[in-house]
């Protein structure tokens, strides 16, 4: 049988096999898995489009009391505004499954965010929770900071005070601010991984 002519095909087929990327855990030090989601204005947003910038991923759910506390106290919107002006792309992701009672339409999310002065770059809808799975996101809020090279530099909680009352929220040590300050200033992010707290993501 004459099959030599297929050498190239075989070689390219094996090349495809090796090119398939591995799925790594979403923890500090790891490359941030790429994803494309539609935002609340119908625009497709791809993570890798922000290569070259710092990106913050914030898992959110307006139904969650923890999220409500961070928005009602203006803690989260304040942080979004603070870093948005410094060219950090802040992406809030609602991964509530479209079958769950927490699922919100784009219009509902827009209304809630504008009522709470949400100042993020975009609010993304992850109706099949696939992106949450990709990042092993567990809670709302669950925060990831990604550097311009596309690596995760911080993964975990928004701050160190899971039980803070509304009044105390702004006094907590905000891990996202700490991480962004250190990373943009060329310093080592510490802590780089913390245990996230909040409501379970409505997978």
């Amino acid at each position, binding site marked *: 049988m004459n099959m*030599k002519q297929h050498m190239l095909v075989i070689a390219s087929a094996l090349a495809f096999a090796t090119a398939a*990327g591995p799925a790594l*855990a979403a*923890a500090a030090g790891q490359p941030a898995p790429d*994803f494309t*989601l539609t935002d609340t204005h119908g625009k497709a947003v791809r993570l890798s489009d922000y290569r070259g910038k710092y990106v913050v991923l914030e898992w959110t759910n307006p139904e969650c*009391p923890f999220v409500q506390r961070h928005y009602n106290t203006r803690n989260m919107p304040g942080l979004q505004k603070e870093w948005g002006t410094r060219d950090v792309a802040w992406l809030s992701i609602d991964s509530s499954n479209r079958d769950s009672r927490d699922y919100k339409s784009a219009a509902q999310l827009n209304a809630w965010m504008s009522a709470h002065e949400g100042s993020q770059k975009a609010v993304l809808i992850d109706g099949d929770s*696939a992106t949450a799975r990709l990042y092993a996101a567990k809670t709302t809020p669950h925060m990831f900071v990604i550097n311009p090279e596309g690596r995760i530099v911080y993964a975990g909680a928004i701050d160190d005070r899971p039980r803070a009352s509304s009044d105390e929220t702004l006094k907590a040590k905000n891990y996202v601010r700490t991480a962004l300050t250190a990373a943009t200033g060329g310093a080592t992010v510490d802590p780089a991984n913390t245990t996230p707290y909040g409501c379970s993501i*409505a997978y």
Partner: protein
Amino acid sequence: MIFNALVLTLLMAVGGVRVSDAAPVRTAHVEAELVAEQSALIPGRPNTVALRLVMERGWHTYWQNAGDSGLPTTLTWKLPEGLKAGPIQWPAPRALPVGPLVNYGYEGAVLLLSDIATVPDFLSGKTVTLSARADWLVCKEICIPEGADLSLTLPVIADAAQVTRDPRWIDAIAKARTSLPRPANEWNVTATGRGSTVELHLAPAAGQDSAASIAGSHFFPYVEGQIEASGVQSLTHQGTDWSMSLPVASQRVGEFRRVAGVLVWGDASARRALAIDVPLAGTVVAGSTAPALTAPPLKLTPPASGADTTLSLGTAIFFALVGGLLLNLMPCVFPVLSLKVLGFATHRENDAAMRHHGLAFGAGVLVSFWLLAGVLIGLRAAGAQLGWGFQLQSPAMIAALAVLFFVLALNLSGVFEVRQFVPSSLATWNAKNPLLNDALSGALAVVVASPCSAPFMGAALGYALAGPMLSTWIVFTVLAIGMALPYVLLAYFPAWRKRLPKPGAWMLRLKQLLAFPLYATVLWLAWVLGAQLDNDAVLRLGASLLLIALGLWAWQTMRTGGARGWGIAAAASIAGALAVGWPVVGTSAMDAESNVAKRPAADGPWQEYSAARVAQLVEAGRPVFVEFTAAWCVTCQVNKRLVLDTDAVRDVFARRKVALLQADWTRRDPAIGAALAALGRNGVPVYVFFRPGKEPLLLPEVLTKQDIFDAIDTPQSAATLDAPLNEQAPTSRLIPSTGG
């Protein structure tokens, strides 16, 4: 003393003092109160009190480590001078699946015990009020932070003889106590880090050979960020020793120098817990995938049947050899096998030359397997959950294979002749290197074999990929030897070859006939592509193939004396095929995962697999049958048509109320990869039967109806099928009465 008691009795009689406290506080989803074990505080000794939380059905509160989400309940005491409250003593928690996540906590009712210490000279005779602020997070689909200010008023009586136990709480407190973790005195416990798992080993301490069984244990770490809460823990039992494999958290937090937590076993009515706190030897790396979103929070013991992870190297080698041999008969390899045998019939060279052909072919197979092993080892080291056939999870690979099979088929059909297709210089070079041709056909055989998993292969590969690199290499080598063996033997023994029919006109017809299995393979690959991507992709592939056929035909026309224009037409067609097909090839697996809605794989009685769902169903007393499958897996499709989709099997499943779950690995899915790894496998098909209270049962890769009937333990006669194993509805959850 007597006076005190008298006064107290008097006071109580007139109703001035209530030994018990106010009514329980009701919040939206919880009823909370402080309760005391005894009717009075006795100075100088610990007095047990408890925060009693009764959750609304379906809601839960949390253990000291909440698991993937949630917050532990807190209790802040405000006590009179001379009293001091100890920390909360947490009864054994339960693993509570919430979607793919797992929380640690309590449903139903729970008593969180605390000892109130009194100074010895604490004034007896008076009554004291113990106040506490309790805060808890109560969750179902949503979480609500709740709290209450609670109090409990008790008299202080020095004479223990006059103090009675409060009958309302005797049982509940006793039950909570029995499920408090005990020190693991009768065990020697060690913990060793082995990469992304921690192995906990329990051996009975000296003189403790009758140490209790801890079958069905689940380990709950005290802190999050060390052990993956939702990961699969596997418990194995050897003699009197127990070994538990715990998955390291994918999002590691803080130091991990000790393994500390509780080991919990027993059912809701008698839960037992052992406190573990041992140094961690060895090294750990963060779990590379996210088992959080994957694997069942089950007490999953690898099945003790012949094909499991405890395979010895010798058995694995034997399985690999037999698996490699059988691979030749699998539907995806068979056309290639036929082509090769045809090749033997054509070549009537001297015996030495034939031997060289056979060896070259074998070398091609071997090197391809090594390449595959190298790629697999590399990608797995980088953290990918991959297994046999992994390359078929990439739509680009499927498209490339479809083109390969199609071009091969066109060649067999005689649409174009190969020698004219290759530039003359290369053809000459090839003619001088006939052995390279054999080696390449060996490589081709391996490429087309990848969608197939033969019997015995699954177990061997599971062993290969779970073990060290050397064992991976050995098993792949033996697989290659097994696959190449028939050809090599045929090449070495001329006597065997003589039995092959003489060449003749029939060979051309057979060659043309063999094109059709290849066309069928293309059809199947197109279907796989459709499952991975969408209709458009199938159309693009089809159009691409059409243009390739046109191009090759035009090329052939030119080579057999046609005008030069045919050559241009051929080049244009091939360019067109590339342009049309490129979007398919350019679609990365990532896009396929995130952009395309999940294929509605689960149809009819089949539901989509999730680890949590398995746990939930098994806990509810339902037997569960899980099919790990993929559209590109031929063996899977065969099993589906011949066994799973037959009326007899469907009927047995329905009568025995077996819940059917399907895990579709057509596209890369770390969750399914991790679940397979937990079963000691890394390829599909895998069929597992989970039964309440029993170990999960792995069924053979090539299924028969009888395997299913045996697994369900059902004689095939319809008369005995009427008694269901379990009548419990899938939604009825056991309400745990941990501590209450």
